């Protein structure tokens, strides 16, 4: 058993009071660097990133647009190999994508040629038919798409497509979810509802979640820990423990304190 710590980075907000369950380390990134070569120019996108995520933990990667946090998520998910360093998940090093860890793209990731049922069942082709039908029905209900089983994605709203993609991911019962700005394209009302839904699902299924966002409020509302990243090349600037229980009161003093702490950390005065 190892305590959840972030290698090489000192948490900027540390509260002695926080009695964490001793989390087993699920994911460990060690010295990950990523350099892209474009027309003989080398662009350093990730600079020596080390990070640990505990089992069942909800961690947000927060940083400005284009800082490389999505690249980090793609490295961790196994879609691209890092130039240096390595990622280990559950003790094994990552060499490619794996159905035990599903990547949720923005809503564009659903397959437009499949119905809602077809999308949710996409990763279940190895299961016996009865089990498959049962799981599809279960997740259709869970994400509130009852009555839309036979609908194609183009007949769904943005929020429904996003829920569909989450359902497709959950249906294969992964231990980890990687979410890349999943609610970025949604309107602000749908986004708030979706955050609530995601938390409800997370509390029910206790997946380990790594969630990329550039939205400070979103990070503080959702995460156990917020990993603040710098502009490119991305480095970990700091890690903030969000020691508030769910459901979170987003006008409580502690919430505002943590949120403003992150604003300062990023170098933004919280004034418009």
């Amino acid at each position, binding site marked *: 058993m190892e305590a959840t710590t972030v290698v090489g980075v000192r948490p900027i907000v540390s509260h002695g009071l926080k009695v964490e369950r001793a989390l087993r380390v699920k994911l460990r990134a060690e010295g990950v660097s990523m350099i892209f070569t474009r027309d003989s120019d080398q662009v350093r996108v990730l600079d020596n990133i080390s990070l640990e995520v505990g089992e069942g933990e909800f961690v947000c990667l927060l940083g400005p647009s284009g800082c490389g946090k999505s690249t980090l998520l793609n490295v961790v*998910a196994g*879609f691209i190999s890092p130039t240096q360093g390595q990622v280990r998940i559950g003790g094994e090093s990552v060499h*490619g*994508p*794996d*159905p035990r*860890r*599903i*990547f949720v*793209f923005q809503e*564009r*990731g659903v*397959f*437009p*040629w*499949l119905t809602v049922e077809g999308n949710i069942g*996409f*990763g279940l082709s190895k299961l016996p038919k009865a089990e498959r039908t049962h799981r599809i029905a279960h997740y259709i209900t869970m994400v509130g798409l009852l009555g839309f089983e036979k609908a*194609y*994605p*183009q007949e769904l709203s943005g929020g429904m497509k996003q829920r569909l993609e989450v359902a497709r991911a959950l249906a*294969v019962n992964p231990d980890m979810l990687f979410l890349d700005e999943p609610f970025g394209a949604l309107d602000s009302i749908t986004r708030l509802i979706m955050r609530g839904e995601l938390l409800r699902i997370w509390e029910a299924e206790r997946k380990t979640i790594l969630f990329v966002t550039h939205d400070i409020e979103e990070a503080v509302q959702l995460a156990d820990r917020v990993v603040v990243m710098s502009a490119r090349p991305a480095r970990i600037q700091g890690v903030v423990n969000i020691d508030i229980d769910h459901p979170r009161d987003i006008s409580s003093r502690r919430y505002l304190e943590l949120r403003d702490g992150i604003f300062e950390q990023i170098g933004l005065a919280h004034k418009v």
Partner: protein
Amino acid sequence: MKLSVWLRPVAFVAALLVLWHIAIARQTVHLLPGPVAVAAGIVELARRGLLLKYVTASLFRVTWGFTAAAVFGIPLGLAIGWYRRSEMALNPLIQIFRPISPLAWIPISILWFGVGDMAAIFLIFLASFLPLTVTAMNAVASIPPVHINAGRNFGLSQAQLIARVLYPAVAPQLIIGLRITLGIAWLVVVAAEMIAVNSGLGFLIVDARNAGTRYDLVVAGMVLIGLIGLLLDIGMRSLEGVKSLRWGYSED
């Protein structure tokens, strides 16, 4: 409402036919046969047993040439598009062959296959092959990476990825490509038949002019080509209505 959608083009064509008839009746120079003479020509062809024979002959050549092109061209295009390096290697070659009109191949196809069906089929094959290959190449290249990544994420093997992501993702574009290419094939069959064979609608046009300047039959041949082209297009278009393909045609 549905009736009027059909009725509009029918009424317009009828009006044009009437205009055509009046225009021809009012002048004495022999510019073009009138619609009545053309209709009579088609009836005559039918009575002599040539109508069905020529239409079948032309469709037979198009079917074989076009099918062969689809069977070889589409998988080749998909493979080239899938392996980006092969695209870099092969693209210049494709772009050199593309501007060469299929009609430029007529002498060579006669040299290889003699005068007959095979020469015409070969020309249609040539005319359809590269357009289909290029369509398939582009269709693969335009698959959003998120769909391929999602497929890989769910643990699909390469073969499964092709069957369950690549194929459905390219299907809508392939069908558009097939429809356009069938139109090209139909254009080329007529030209090929003017030279390489002695049956079919293209042959009819050349033959009617050579053997007795029967311009009513020339125009009858043109009308038949147009009508069959329209039917082929309607047939291909109906594929675009398939539900699992329709996403590919909506402007999103």
